[in-house]
């Protein structure tokens, strides 16, 4: 049986238009008819809008397409990644513009006391007033507020665990009434955790030494002088 669907003919990013059911959405306040169920990003393209600022990995990892949306009759404005959220009837959405957050500049390796240095680099971090807006704004569902406090109290391990999902979209920042950029605080704490509070893996050091001491030279000499045929046999013998 020929696979006439997946055996490709012409790929189109709006393939789901075949399904025909349409919904009305508002993009930046203007109504458009778009196919039901497509992502907000695809709805932009369908509506005839070029996206340059706002499109990135298209897989939910880069945070380029941070967007605000509201569903029909609900006053609550929510956040999402436009590449990873489906449109629905009556939805209204806009992309978030680049936000001018302040990033501290530091040399991660030469920090003397990283947990104390946090207060020099991000003096606003301990001024959190617990409004929880950052947590509510996070499209990755990270407990951002708690993460900021963990950083302030020096529990960098917890910060790095909590923020492993962070795509750096920055939606936690414009909502902060204390002018904290929680994602930037978290990157600092995570990097400091890795660079200063994590053991050096002994096996890795040993392997680097072995390579520079020529431990594998004999193996290389043997392998690299093999004919293509013998090399193939050697490779094939590995399970």
């Amino acid at each position: 049986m020929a696979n006439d669907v997946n055996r490709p003919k012409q790929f189109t990013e709006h393939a789901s238009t075949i399904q025909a059911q349409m919904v009305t959405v508002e993009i930046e306040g203007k109504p458009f008819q778009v196919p039901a169920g497509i992502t907000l990003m695809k709805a932009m393209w369908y509506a005839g809008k070029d996206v340059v600022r706002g499109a990135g990995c298209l897989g939910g990892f880069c945070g380029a397409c941070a967007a605000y949306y509201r569903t029909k009759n609900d006053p609550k404005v929510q956040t999402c990644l436009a590449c990873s959220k489906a449109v629905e009837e009556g939805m209204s959405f806009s992309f978030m513009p680049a936000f001018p957050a302040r990033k501290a500049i530091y040399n991660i390796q030469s920090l003397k006391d990283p947990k104390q240095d946090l207060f020099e680099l991000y003096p606003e971090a301990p001024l959190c007033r617990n409004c929880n807006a950052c947590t509510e704004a996070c499209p990755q569902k990270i407990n951002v507020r708690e993460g900021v406090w963990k950083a302030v109290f020096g529990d960098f391990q917890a910060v790095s665990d909590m923020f492993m999902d962070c795509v750096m979209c920055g939606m936690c920042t414009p909502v902060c009434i204390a002018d904290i950029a929680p994602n930037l605080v978290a990157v600092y704490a995570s990097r400091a955790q890795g660079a200063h509070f994590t053991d050096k893996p002994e096996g890795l050091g040993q392997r680097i030494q072995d390579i520079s001491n020529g431990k594998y030279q004999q193996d290389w000499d043997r392998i690299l002088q093999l004919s293509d045929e013998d090399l193939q046999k050697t490779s094939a013998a590995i399970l």
Partner: protein
Amino acid sequence: MDIIAQHNLVHQTRDARRAIDFPKLSPAERDSLIKKYHPDHRAQAYRPIKFGPNAGELTVTEVATLLEGDSPLPADLSLEPKYSVDVLVVGGGGAGCAAALHAHAEGANVLLATKLRLGDSNSVMAQGGMQIAVAPDDSPVQHFLDTLKGGHMKNDHDLLKVMVEDGPTIAQWLLELGVLFDRQEDGNLHVKKGGGSSKARLLTCSDYTGLEIMRVLKDEVLNQKIPLLEFGAAVELLSDGKGACTGAVLQDLDNKRYVVVAAKTVILATGGIGRLHIQGFPTSNHFGATGDALVLAYRMGAPLVQIDTFQYHPSGGVYPEQLVGALVTEGIRSEGGHLVNANGERFVNELDTRDVVSSSIIKECEEGRGIRTAAGRLGVWLDTPLLDVEHGPGTLDKHFPAMVRQYERYGVDIRKDPVLIYPTLHYQNGGVKIGVNGETSVANLFVAGEASGGLHGRNRLMGNSLLDLMVFGKRTGLTATARAKSLSQGALTLDHVTKFRAEAKRHQVSSGLTSPMVLPAYTRQVS
């Protein structure tokens, strides 16, 4: 059979499947399966390139057309430089960041230009991990042999040897910058087994390895205050009129103006080709994966290698529609996830190489053992709940938080139900031909990462891409810097473009297409 009954069949057959050890194919069986089903072997998708360094060689129509495309630049463009630097790095993914950081550390005056934002790349999406031979029972030689076998023995030995040998020092560099690789109890690096590898060799940061590395590298590029030009797409290289590269013309995507950069050396790190949708495949790639470096280097006279082979990752999403083409990490199969057809049967060893697994999925679907979605797409099951059965409840939550979240957004719980997958266009196996320091056959023009070719042979092994980016990003950064120190800035001309246009005319190329593509044209033409 409806989809619920299909689901149930996966649940019902799970225990029986667990009892079976599915053997890997012999080399002869692999070859015949690939020749029959792998998209690289569909002759009608290929044509010879009409002119240029690879004239007469076959590649897919999409790539051939771009390579033969015209430069977008007007012949009378003013070449007055706006920037003058030692090293111009084009591309802000893993290879570009690694190149810029190493060049900067060696004292080069660097400009990093990228057509989207810093870090918007495929690198950020790499979930499976990074292969580095660090385990006691492993060695760089073993890594070399595994990669060679995966690449069908067609890998460039010199490139491959430096990659596997540089690996451990790359791991050390990343650890020093604060990358949090998963650890064993004893503090050593935790290693996972990847498809096609004989040893557990994947370093991971849960299923966010690429994201974690890129968060750190981006932060470091900003900390080092490396001059950055975002939304600046390279659309042409500059030559001194004697064959050496002397800079590039960028286009500022915010105002469409051309920006001329005089550079003693240029490093192209612009990634791969997924967004060309070769043979109509959906893709796992980021928005900017349009093969720009291939076009730029080719017009300048740099030969490409193995540009007829692409990687179709076995597990692209099929359902829900929003996830069509999106990557389902190979890590699921690494930890024992089965592939299951419509009859509830396994049909391949899930840890065979990507080309073998993809070919076998295409075979199942073409022979009527695929599962069809309401939207009419075909796929096979990936038994995700098996992981919690096999390794205990919570395994998926702990090891694959990104994937759990990705599906949860659309109401699919991968802990309870399997997901449908089909191969997705994932990686350009070949690319611009380079030497061990990333230099092309054009003097002072370097290429690093996916844009380059030769290292991976005809099929890249899982986890070798992140290492490729770091190793050759570093090598190009260091070599370009050393070179720049011995050079004075050469003349800025478009002589190579004039020559290329004459060649195109001679070969009667009249597609009217300009390249590089820069971004795919997804915007619907609304009348």
